[in-house]
């Protein structure tokens, strides 16, 4: 009995620490990769390869003045940044890293992830509202509209995978891919989910809630110190979470030859995170109305058609 408790405790702390550390490292990794693709060094001064830049940034963030504007809605202002951290870290609970590694084996794991990602929206919206600032408000309005619309087909695009695996359980979905990864039969679902994932984590090119050229910093304009840091880390957490989920759902999770399962999982997830960064380096930001039109007029019909086709083929195959 006590050994199982120790194993699950180790899993919980392992996943928590790994997620937070990787998110922190990603702040450095992203800048290095961007530098690489833009023909410049990136942060390379502090420590080996500039690795301690993360530590330097953390120290800086911790010692900045933690300022709450006089006109802000104080309790909500403090609550907002914690929501994104909490919901994203909770989302990691259902990710099956390897056969024995993973916090919880939930029957509705996929829905749990969707629920957590829809909770994360509140962070942006409430932060924007509590700041009581016009730029923040505009950013929050955009975030609300963007995430609510992209959430619709984020869920729909996953239903093809659910139909093929016959389960919402992420572990069973991975095991159902032993015959072949779902990225091939569910290529459309993969594309739609990937794009919706970028929009959900409001990363470039879909970072309109914080578009710095028009909204200064969007929803986190008024935030400083670790409150800003939580928004910042939360964004990287969501990038990692979505990459890990795509790995689980479409790329066969931990499955793969020769290497140990966990290594495969991290390789695939790392590759997807790199694609996220590459997209940021390569693609310019669309206009806000273009983003919404693209969502409702292209992505939604595509994901519905994918759902219909998957259902039809599955019925036909019996």
């Amino acid at each position, binding site marked *: 009995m006590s050994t199982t408790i120790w194993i699950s405790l180790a899993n919980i702390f392992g996943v928590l620490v790994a997620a937070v550390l990787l998110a922190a490292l990603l702040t450095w990794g992203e800048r290095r990769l961007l530098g690489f693709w833009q023909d410049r060094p990136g942060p390379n001064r502090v420590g080996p390869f500039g690795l301690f830049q993360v530590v330097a940034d953390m120290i800086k963030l911790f010692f900045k003045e933690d300022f709450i504007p006089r006109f802000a*809605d104080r309790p909500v202002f403090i609550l907002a940044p914690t929501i994104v951290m909490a919901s994203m870290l909770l989302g990691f609970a259902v990710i099956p890293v390897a056969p024995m590694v993973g916090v919880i084996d939930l*029957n509705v794991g996929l*829905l749990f992830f969707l*629920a957590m990602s*829809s*909770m994360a929206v509140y962070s942006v919206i409430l932060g924007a*509202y509590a700041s009581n600032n016009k730029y923040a408000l505009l950013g929050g309005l955009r975030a*609300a509209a963007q995430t609510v619309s992209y959430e619709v087909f984020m869920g729909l695009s996953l239903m093809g995978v659910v139909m093929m695996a016959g389960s919402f359980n992420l572990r069973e979905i991975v095991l159902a891919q032993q015959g072949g990864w779902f990225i091939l039969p569910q290529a459309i679902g993969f594309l739609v989910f990937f794009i919706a994932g970028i929009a959900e984590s409001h990363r470039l090119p879909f970072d309109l809630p914080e578009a710095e050229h028009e909204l200064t910093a969007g929803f986190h304009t008024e935030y400083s110190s670790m409150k800003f840091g939580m928004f910042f880390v939360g964004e990287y957490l969501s990038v990692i979470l979505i990459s890990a989920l795509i790995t689980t759902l479409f790329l066969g999770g931990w499955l793969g030859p020769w290497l140990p399962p966990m290594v495969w999982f991290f390789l695939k997830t790392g590759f997807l995170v790199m694609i996220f960064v590459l997209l940021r380096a390569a693609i310019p930001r669309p206009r806000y109305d273009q983003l919404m039109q693209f969502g409702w007029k292209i992505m939604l019909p595509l994901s519905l058609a994918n759902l219909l086709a998957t259902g039809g083929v599955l019925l036909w195959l019996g």
Partner: protein
Amino acid sequence: MYPVYFYLTAAVAIIATAMVIFSRNAVHALLHLIVSLLAVAVIFFQLGAPLAAALEVIVYAGAIMVLMVFVIMMLNQGDAAVEQENTWLQPGSWVAPGILSGVLLLQLILMLGGQGVSTAGGGAAEISYVGAGEVGISLFSRYLLAVELASMLLLAGLVGAFHLARQKSTADLEAGHDE
């Protein structure tokens, strides 16, 4: 073990719902409503309906409430609205409806109490797990009519929203051409 969790969650739900009513600030009230919905989701989960719990969070707490926060944020009422709420929360305006609802609540409790004791006692033992498959099958067999009616209602809403949005955008376009 389980009744403790249940009553704890139920208490959270009830307190949060009361806070929705008594909050003077609309956004704070909505936050309490979100907490209340999350508590209800946890209750669903405890009663063996994880699908209902997940959908409660995704649909109610995650989508509908976001839209409500969205609207309230757009109105950006500020302190004037809080003042107005303060005047509305004077005892004179809520005592009479409060007593009337209290009578209804009392009736409900009495009715539930009549048979509820036995179900509350035996309820924990007969918790059965309801998965996604069971929900889907009963939705598309026994409750097919309700599903179809709901879909028609949603279609009407969709068409209405489309109509409203379209008129506005064509008017904008014409205004743009005139300039």
